[in-house]
């Protein structure tokens, strides 16, 4: 019983992050894009927790709290944008909103 190697926790975070990232760049539906973003944020939060527990410090959880705050803010703004997107383009395709191309 000698615990879990820190690398394993970080590898888990990396896998989740990469999966979220894969979802982000594969999907065109904005709902899935936002969900993938949540996954990625969650993975980042996991990495903080792993770091915090590995050193036995509470800062990891404090950072987690911040990440979760960020995720909440991001989700609310993102979903508001999603509603607007749906309203204006009658579609959830993120590529529809490319008016800012150069």
């Amino acid at each position: 019983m000698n615990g879990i190697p820190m690398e394993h926790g970080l590898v888990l975070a990396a896998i989740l992050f990469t999966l979220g990232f894969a979802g982000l760049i594969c999907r065109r539906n904005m709902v899935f894009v936002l969900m993938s973003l949540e996954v990625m944020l969650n993975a980042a939060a996991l990495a903080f927790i792993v770091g915090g527990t590995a050193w036995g410090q509470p800062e990891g959880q404090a950072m987690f709290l911040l990440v979760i705050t960020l995720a909440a803010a991001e989700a609310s703004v993102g979903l508001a944008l999603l509603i607007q997107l749906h309203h204006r383009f009658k579609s959830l395709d993120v590529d529809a909103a490319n008016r800012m191309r150069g």
Partner: protein
Amino acid sequence: MEIAFYLSGLIAVLATLGVITNTNPVHALLYLIVSLISVALVFFALGAPFAGALEVIVYAGAIMVLFVFVVMMLNLGDQGAAQEKAWLRPRIWLGPSLLAAVLLVTLIATLWSGDAGRMISGEVLTAKAVGSLLFGPWLMVVELGAMLLLAALVTASHVGRVASPDKPEVNAESGARKEAS
């Protein structure tokens, strides 16, 4: 405890895979919730019960409910799922997946190139420790977080209005474009 970690880790990975491959938003959301809960279990296993609890309450609870509401409000039907299928052809996802795989490999390689060997014993870091940190030296950060949430609230309530009075704004913008070009 290790078993709990590895098992819930595996579930988290599988559930996340389900999130990104599923074509039905509601199903995907359910997978996401599963994924979040298993990550919360991971937190418990690592000895961060406060974080695990918050994960369940805030993430799997509040944020996901928000998602569910939005998905329900948009009322995405069957043709939505059909379109998702059309968008998810191998030709489209193969390249990005490959890139993601490369990224993963690189990340792991980076991990292994650092100093290894630290073990997580699973000692519990209580909410008390976290709280005294947050309302002690990190007070400023908490206040910044509060500001962020407030800003997000204002933004979301402004952007989210369906009948936004920005028709003239669009005109003004195109007018400006005409002038510049």
